[in-house]
């Protein structure tokens, strides 16, 4: 195969042995790479009901078909896939940077880590040589320090490293995997799975060529993308970056503030992208092979957090800022740095602090629980102190490190009313109380609370639809983007580049074929997107998730937006949610319980997985449907 390396590496961490097996072309075309191929490999390499934190749960690393080429953004991706310890369903997180390209050059489309090492190790993949290396001296180190130490000891500055931090080591369920120092595969606890295996890091050096099927036309295509990337489709990412969203969301009453108590933030100006870029952004850098350059590196120039340095994006800025009522950018940058330092998913971590603050404001947590910390909304020092405690699992931090769903169960006293998650995964920075198209996408997303599985907030925010209304057929708009987004995450393109594929599936099919030589039509690629969405759903169904897991965060359904803004009074009722789910399932061709039908599976080439849905469809329908 061309583009693809044609090989899957299997590493048994229990025994230290490894072997390779071929990636069949049929499998490659059907699942593309990235999360598509990753979820399929997860499903095929795990038993139903597998415990996420067990030796039997594999951690799958997957590159994309164009990883290692100079396809802008396509050239540098990596996906981590496993059963999530947060959701007990499909777990996946992607990252860019440089790590993925080296893994491809080492000659692998995917690596499946099985078993569990007895003691801390890192895996050193040096082209065909795969070794387990002692990592006792790295235990406790941050991902960045781990990267430096591994490069030093292997004696090659160009070795690429993906590592976990202390939070992962202590099995926090919201642990991230960090590669290339500033890039995080944050969501769904992939760092926790890696840590459970005693796998501190993966170091890789690839020296092999990556080629494409049609070099001349591929290069022309890349040139065209370079030109498009200099244009309006990416202006946002190249200038203010995603923090631009702060003021936009604020003006539309869609900026979740103080754990979804409000939808506007009086301190928005002070944490805006505009202010951030003026005061804190020191340099904008780029990933391997990308022509866009979006990575805003912020540095605190003075004050108590002087020297704090981090890559800034809207989501962590939101979760650690407005979501906690914090309006000090220096503290927010320090907080983001701490998340990277401890290896915490900054989204889930910010959610956990905001949740604890909400509990504190409502008397559910007191100073006795917080070791004397005043956890009032807006207390920047409390945010920093609590993150340290989460990273080290001390005091209240020990509970919050489990994620908001489990933390609420442990705290009790009605704390679940303040735990904003879907399927156990914490919320992201869109106030879906007044974004009712996005709300559909959030509820049904196979990895839990997420804007990146559907991007339907765009339709709401741009006014393409009436965002305060639910209506029949609206789900079709969500599905259209979902099917595109699973392809983007399987090719592992950066979503910041999505606007440069003017003809969407047509452009992407051409891109894929030029690189791999595998012919695929735009329609086939769309169906592939649908197939991968169904696949994510099927894994969840196999693991016991049902319609009732397609829920929305507690406060989205309990607290109408109180602010004097355009979205005032908006929230989502159970009746509306039921309507959304009925509509979505019907548009997807699923049963009323949200189970893909046998006919649907045949249509999209997943007949071999019909065994997962058969018992759900044939069993008595009556008691189950009544519940919903």
């Amino acid at each position, binding site marked *: 195969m061309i583009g693809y390396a044609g090989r899957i590496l299997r590493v048994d961490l229990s025994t230290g042995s490894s072997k390779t097996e071929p990636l069949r072309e049929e499998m490659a075309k059907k699942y593309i790479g990235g999360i598509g191929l990753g979820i399929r490999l997860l499903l095929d390499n795990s038993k139903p009901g597998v415990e996420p934190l067990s030796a039997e749960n594999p951690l799958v690393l997957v590159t994309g078909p164009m990883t290692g080429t100079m396809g802008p953004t396509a050239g540098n991706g990596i996906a981590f896939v496993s059963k999530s310890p947060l959701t007990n369903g499909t777990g996946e997180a992607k990252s860019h940077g440089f790590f993925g390209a080296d893994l491809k050059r080492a000659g692998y489309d995917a690596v499946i880590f099985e078993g569990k090492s007895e003691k801390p190790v890192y895996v050193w993949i040096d082209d065909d040589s795969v070794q387990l290396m002692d990592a006792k001296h790295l235990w406790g180190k941050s991902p960045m320090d781990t990267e430096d130490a591994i490069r030093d000891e292997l004696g090659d500055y160009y070795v690429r490293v993906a590592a976990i931090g202390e939070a992962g080591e202590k099995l926090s369920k919201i642990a991230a995997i960090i590669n290339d120092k500033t890039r995080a595969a944050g969501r769904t606890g992939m760092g926790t799975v890696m840590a459970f295996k005693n796998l501190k890091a993966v170091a890789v050096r690839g020296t092999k060529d990556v080629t494409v099927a049609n070099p001349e036309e591929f290069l022309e295509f890349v040139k065209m993308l370079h030109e498009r990337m200099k244009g309006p489709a990416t202006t946002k990412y190249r200038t203010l970056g995603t923090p631009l969203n702060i003021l936009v969301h604020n003006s539309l009453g869609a900026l979740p503030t103080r754990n979804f108590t409000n939808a506007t933030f009086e301190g928005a100006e002070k944490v805006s992208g505009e202010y951030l870029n003026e005061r804190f952004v020191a340099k904008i850098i*780029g990933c391997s092979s990308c022509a866009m350059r979006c990575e805003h590196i912020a*540095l605190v120039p003075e004050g108590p957090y002087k020297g704090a340095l981090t890559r800034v994006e809207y989501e962590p800025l939101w979760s650690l800022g407005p979501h906690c009522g914090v309006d000090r950018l220096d503290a927010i940058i320090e907080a983001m740095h701490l998340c990277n330092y401890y290896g915490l998913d900054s989204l889930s971590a910010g959610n956990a602090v905001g949740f604890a603050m909400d509990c504190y404001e409502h008397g559910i947590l007191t100073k006795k629980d917080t070791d004397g910390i005043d956890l009032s909304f807006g207390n920047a020092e409390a945010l920093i102190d609590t993150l340290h405690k989460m990273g080290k699992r001390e005091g209240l931090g020990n509970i919050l490190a489990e994620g908001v769903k489990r933390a609420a169960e442990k705290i009790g006293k009605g704390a679940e009313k303040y735990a904003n998650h879907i399927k156990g995964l914490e919320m992201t920075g869109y106030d879906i109380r007044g974004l009712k198209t996005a709300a559909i996408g959030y509820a049904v997303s196979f990895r839990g609370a997420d804007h990146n599985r559907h991007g339907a907030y765009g339709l709401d925010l741009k006014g393409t639809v009436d965002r305060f209304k639910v209506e029949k057929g609206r789900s079709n708009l969500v599905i259209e983007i979902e099917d595109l987004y699973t392809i983007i995450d399987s090719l592992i393109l950066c979503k910041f580049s999505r606007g440069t594929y003017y003809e969407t599936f047509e452009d992407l099919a051409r891109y894929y074929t030029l690189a791999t030589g595998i012919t695929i039509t735009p329609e086939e690629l769309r169906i592939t997107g649908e197939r991968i969405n169904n696949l994510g759903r099927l894994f969840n169904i196999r693991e016991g998730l049902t319609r009732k897991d397609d829920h929305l965060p507690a406060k989205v359904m309990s607290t109408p937006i109180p602010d004097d803004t355009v979205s005032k009074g908006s929230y989502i009722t159970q009746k509306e949610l039921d309507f959304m789910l009925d509509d979505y399932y019907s548009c997807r061709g699923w049963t009323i319980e949200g189970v893909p039908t046998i006919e649907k599976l045949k249509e999209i080439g997943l007949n071999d997985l019909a065994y997962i849905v058969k018992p759900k469809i044939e069993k008595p329908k009556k008691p189950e449907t009544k519940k919903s």
Partner: protein
Amino acid sequence: MAAAPVRKFVSADPEKCVGCAVCEYICSFEKEKAFNPLKSRIRVVRLHPLINLSVTCRLCEDPPCVAACPRDALEQSGETGVIIIDEEKCNGCGWCIEACDYGAITLHPESRVVFVCDLCDGEPKCVEWCPEEALDFTTPDLLAQKARRAVVKKLFQEAMKTVPA
């Protein structure tokens, strides 16, 4: 005395370079029809997220790499200044690599002889493709001009504001 020929080389602007490595990919593709940074004649160094720079051959006067070769495998083109490698003579001993202050001449991972920037016959692909326009095909004199203009602009920041565009 005839003026020495003006030698142009590829230089990266530290203010503009973002470390994206597009130059490495296009170089290896142009020269070897493969994407592989190890086969690129220009290499990116990221010391820190804030410190990025591409480095390639500077076409030194009296190049130390040429002087260091015990087998006389290297010579400098009198016209362009490019280092020409006799692949028959080179045995990959690495003396030239040690002699170069910039790490610009390196050992090819497959042929095991050294290789270095040849300026793509006067039209360097890396310069053409750099998305940040961070690479210049330039001369020492032009670099000095650029530096002088930058420093004067900085010194006269206030005055520059009043100058009509």
